[in-house]
């Protein structure tokens, strides 16, 4: 790195670093890339955490809904079970059929 003394300011001589232009550009590009990489990594990490939490929450929601679904299934089965249907039928005035058979119809 070469040093070029410039004009003095208030009597104190100041110097100016004269960097190689290519090195400087590479350094800046390096910094930008490193920042982008780190930023990307952090963003990816954050997204991973957020998605993991969402997946975990979805798993729990599925389990909860599965339990609710099973509860409703059993309730429907209870309401449509033969003993319950019989009781409700009798309450509505129906009576068990004494004889059940096919009806013979005349062929037109």
């Amino acid at each position: 790195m070469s040093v070029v003394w410039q004009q003095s300011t208030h009597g104190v001589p100041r110097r100016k670093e004269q960097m190689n232009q290519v090195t400087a550009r590479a350094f800046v590009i390096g910094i930008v890339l490193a920042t982008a990489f780190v930023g990307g990594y952090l963003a990816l990490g954050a997204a991973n955490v957020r998605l993991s939490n969402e997946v975990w929450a979805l798993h729990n929601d599925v389990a909860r809904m599965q339990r609710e679904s099973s509860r409703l299934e059993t309730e429907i089965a209870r309401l449509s079970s033969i003993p319950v249907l019989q009781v409700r039928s009798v309450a509505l005035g129906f009576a068990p059929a004494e004889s059940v058979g096919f009806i013979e119809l005349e062929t037109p």
Partner: protein
Amino acid sequence: MLRGPEARLRLVSVLFALVFVVIIGRLVWLQVIVRADWKKEVDTLLDRPYGLPSPPPGVILDRNGDLLVGNAPIYVVGADVSIIATITDTVEAAADLSPLLGRDVASLQADLAVKDRTWVRLAWAIGGEAAYELEDLKAEKWYWLTLEPTWERYYAEGALASHTLGFSNERGEGYGVEAFHYRLLKPQPAVAQGEVDAASEPYPEEMAQGKLRAIQGTDLTLTIDRTIQAFVEGQLDKAMADYGAYGGTILVMNPKTGAILASASRPCYDPARRSEYTEDQRDLFVDPAVSIPYEPGSVFKVITAAAAVDSRGVGPGWSYYDNGALEYGGVVIRNSDREAHGTQDLQGLLSSSLNVGAATLSTQIMGADVFYRYVRAFGFGQLTGIELVAEVPGFVHLPTDWDWTDSTLATNSFGQGIAVTPLQLVTAVSALANHGTMMAPYVVAERRYADGTVVPTTPRPLGQPVSRATADYIAELMANTVADRYDKARVPGYPMAGKSGTAQIPTSGGYDPVEVITSFIGFGPMPDPEVVILVKLDRPQIETYLRWGTQTAGPVFQSVASRLFVLLGIPPTEPVVEPEQ
């Protein structure tokens, strides 16, 4: 000393480099050199099992998709007693929880005041509204409550088909389809081991590994039809009440496929309340249809007749002289009516259910080798392979057995000295109904896996014990027997084939002089039967002279068959002529 900015810059650079080296060195120390020790410590702190609530076990449906066994979501309720703040809390909490858990306040208070443990279970199987209220209580007030979600089997139709459905414990031990298909029905819980946070939720790295794979149990669709099953059970209950029977079994099978449409046995039990049964009552769990063999009596004559026809060409031209007794192997065989019936053909043998005729076929026409070859071919003494736990093969004494005697050949011919299960008998007779092909009985029509794959059961022939011509001939003889003799078993509009049986019950040293097992097995409508029905009544307690298969099981067969054809949508095959009253 440090003159000029360049020197100072160099110094700062050196310092930064030193710090960097120190940091890198430290990182290498921690991450490489002592990594194993630290990893162990971190694992101790963070590596714990985690999981999701277990998915439900598979459900069991009837052939129409109606739920027979489902799953009710329940909670195991507990308390982390180590973090209950004050004694006052235990008093107040016990009062809050008592109505929801169905426990008295004092016992709850005692549980909450436990000091020698960190966790106590307060209640097992809490569901419904109480569960919701407990969740609210936990969220708003008693944060130390623990609610562990689990499942309880729900039997939608109560005790209906209890022997077929059965139950199982955590180890898969039990009865019926539930125990037989325990591994299929059981879900695979989503549980894993890994790094978790304070709330026992996995870290993202853990989630990314996708260790959690909750797979619910496989659903089973049965061949049982709940409507037919309910009707059959009703008829069995009525028959037991009418005839004072101690127990009984009715089996309905499709002879073309082997599908069991209904299997009812008494006594039975309520699987939802199985834990309430005492040790002495555990016999109720055993399915008589597959696990309790009995001596079938005269219904076995159709097997003997089929064997004789198939092996020795006994047919329409064959006859024998029935003088009412046959001495063989030191035992005198007599007809049940103690009468001599003169010259009889095969039709007469079956219609009059002649023991002497059956013994003549086994001892003089076939001989032991041929007779037992056919007994085995019909599946007796072997498991049918149905998907029910604890099926037994029955007892068939073969000439090679130490306890077999010559007289066994004679008595076996009419169903004495041989023990079969109701399922074996139905399976064997179904071969006669299905033109000689014996289908394997089954109760699971299809399996529906968690990924949606449906695997139907393919009907499987067990064998062809007799030729088509033999089977059709015996079926015709059985149909003639119903038409001519069994007016109480006839079904208007449907030609039926059948045979009754009245079997003595073996006791130590002989046979019970009074008690019998009455039965009737038949199929129809002829000539292409759709169903085989077995009705068996144990120890009917009516007048002794009425304790016959024709008098007790026959009428039950008639009522079951006549309704069954309507439920299955099978129209009459001949003009309906109602029997005279």
